[in-house]
């Protein structure tokens, strides 16, 4: 009896898990399906079977050059991530290995900046960008994306560095390692998994950022998020093209996320389970 009921409940949980997963994935799936429809099919109502035409992709590619925003997305995501790591690694390092009374407060203060809605600082930042000539430039946007993700990057790295036991560093010191050797042979190799997953997460966050990238760009520095948005309003309702643009925008990051999911999951649950 007990075995039968546990088997039944397992089947129940499996079905429930699939339902939840499919529900969460459905918008993406439907976007992909719609991108393979003709405009006619797309507006005619709900249907899960497209005619598998690639015309929308072609149209998107010829009307609005895809490669320019793609290049911008890559530059912004990678650039802002590298910048963020350059700033965050020493910061997290200092806080993890020589904490003071105020370390926790500083960390909380950094995180608190993420609690504010971005739109609250839109006007001052918009004006700064306008006055300093940073509007619609890759440099301006790279710095902006670095700044908005910095608190998360510092927090993640801090958590990782904290996990490195102090005794290992002391052992290295006893073993005759200089500070340089300690960093080179002991700390860095141990910190690399943490740095890698932080890097991955930050690339994804920067890639998907759609508030500042749309507000502070027009054409020059516009990444894929702005590319999608450009299909939504000014040219009317072109569902199939909008979907095709979305698919082209999310595909690279989806592929990257798929291949690095092990790293990412480890990064996101780090510290939760020993």
């Amino acid at each position, binding site marked *: 009896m007990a075995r039968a009921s546990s088997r039944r409940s397992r089947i129940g949980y499996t079905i429930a898990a699939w339902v939840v997963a499919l529900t969460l994935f459905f918008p993406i799936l439907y976007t992909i399906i719609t991108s393979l429809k003709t405009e006619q099919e797309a507006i005619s109502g709900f249907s899960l079977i497209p005619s598998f035409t690639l015309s929308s992709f072609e149209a998107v590619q010829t009307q609005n050059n895809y490669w320019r925003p793609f290049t911008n997305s890559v530059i912004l995501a990678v650039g802002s991530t590298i910048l963020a790591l350059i700033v965050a690694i020493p910061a997290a390092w200092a806080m993890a290995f020589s904490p003071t009374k105020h370390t926790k407060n500083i960390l909380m203060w950094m995180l608190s900046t993420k609690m504010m809605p971005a739109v609250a600082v839109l006007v001052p930042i918009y004006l700064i960008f306008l006055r300093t000539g940073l509007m619609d430039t890759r440099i301006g946007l790279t710095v902006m994306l670095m700044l908005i993700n910095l608190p998360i990057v510092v927090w993640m790295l801090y958590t990782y560095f904290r996990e490195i*036991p102090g005794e*290992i560093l*002391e052992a290295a*010191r006893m073993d*005759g390692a200089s500070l340089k050797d300690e960093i080179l*042979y002991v700390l860095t190799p141990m910190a690399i998994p943490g740095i890698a997953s932080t890097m991955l997460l930050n690339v994804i966050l920067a890639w998907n950022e759609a508030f500042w990238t749309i507000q502070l760009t027009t054409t020059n520095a516009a990444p894929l998020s702005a590319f999608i948005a450009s299909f939504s309003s000014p040219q009317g309702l072109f569902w199939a093209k909008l979907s095709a643009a979305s698919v082209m925008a999310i595909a690279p990051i989806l592929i990257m996320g798929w291949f690095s999911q092990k790293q990412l999951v480890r990064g996101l649950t780090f510290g939760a389970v020993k």
Partner: protein
Amino acid sequence: MGRITLEAVTKRFGEVEVIPPLNLDIDDGEFVVFVGPSGCGKSTLLRLIAGLEDTSGGRILIDGKDATDTPPAKRGLAMVFQSYALYPHMSVRKNIAFPMRMAGVPQDEQDRRITAAAKALNLTDYLDRKPGQLSGGQRQRVAIGRAIVREPAAFLFDEPLSNLDAALRVGMRLEISELHNRLKTTMVYVTHDQVEAMTMADKIVVLRAGFIEQVGSPMDLYRAPKNLFVAGFIGSPKMNLIDGPEAARHGAHTIGIRPEHIAVSPTAGTWQGRVGVSEHLGSDTFFYVEGTGLAETITVRAGGDIDLHHGDTVFLTPDAAQMHRFDDTGARIA
């Protein structure tokens, strides 16, 4: 060589003085154990010798040279940590090689020493594994291997066995003692376990609140504890301590008698009581005798074959020659 001298070494953390000025001599080749309850400053003292903590006063001499301000790497000491502190990303071989790599030892010499250490520590088959793939005992052996290959002036052990299970602990205890007999290198060993201290040490240093309560060979401490603290700390099970009229009868404030120095008889003796809990270890039996009116319980050791049960009346006769007497300050009366 490995002679370590502490001269009025002091350590303060902020306002708190953890180690008041302390003097100690550790001779070359000696196995010295720092023992004491947790928080007594024994680990801090070891870390001061290692150079992982800065002294707040006094001098540390290693082989006659002032090493007080010498960084840990330059003191020529090797340390084995409680948590093993292995480098998780390196194989066992690389872990053991690390100190030699830092010292620039030639590759063939490194290989020779690694092979020798691995053989001595039964690690030959594990050299290419990562620490995560080893058991606790094997990890601790790697940590010891890493210390050996440096050929240090002295080994420092910081509670190296506390993370191991009881059976493994006994095995490792023997291995470390054998290692000491073979290498004849100075070893300074920190533990809170008085059994480890008694079984391994040439010289035990009993610490309490940063103060040295007594320094001596295990048997010196067992036979002639300088005060009540050492009397209660060294020996297992603990020495029986008796206050009041019975102590006064012997001209002391407190008398101490070890469980093995009390004769047990079901018929006649000096003190009378009832058998409480008894622990049968096979070779020995420990009786916790209640209702003597002397102390809450009196622990006695008897042979394994004595037939006494819970609630039985029992007579105890202390061996007067083995009795320890202490005055009202807790100090031993000679």
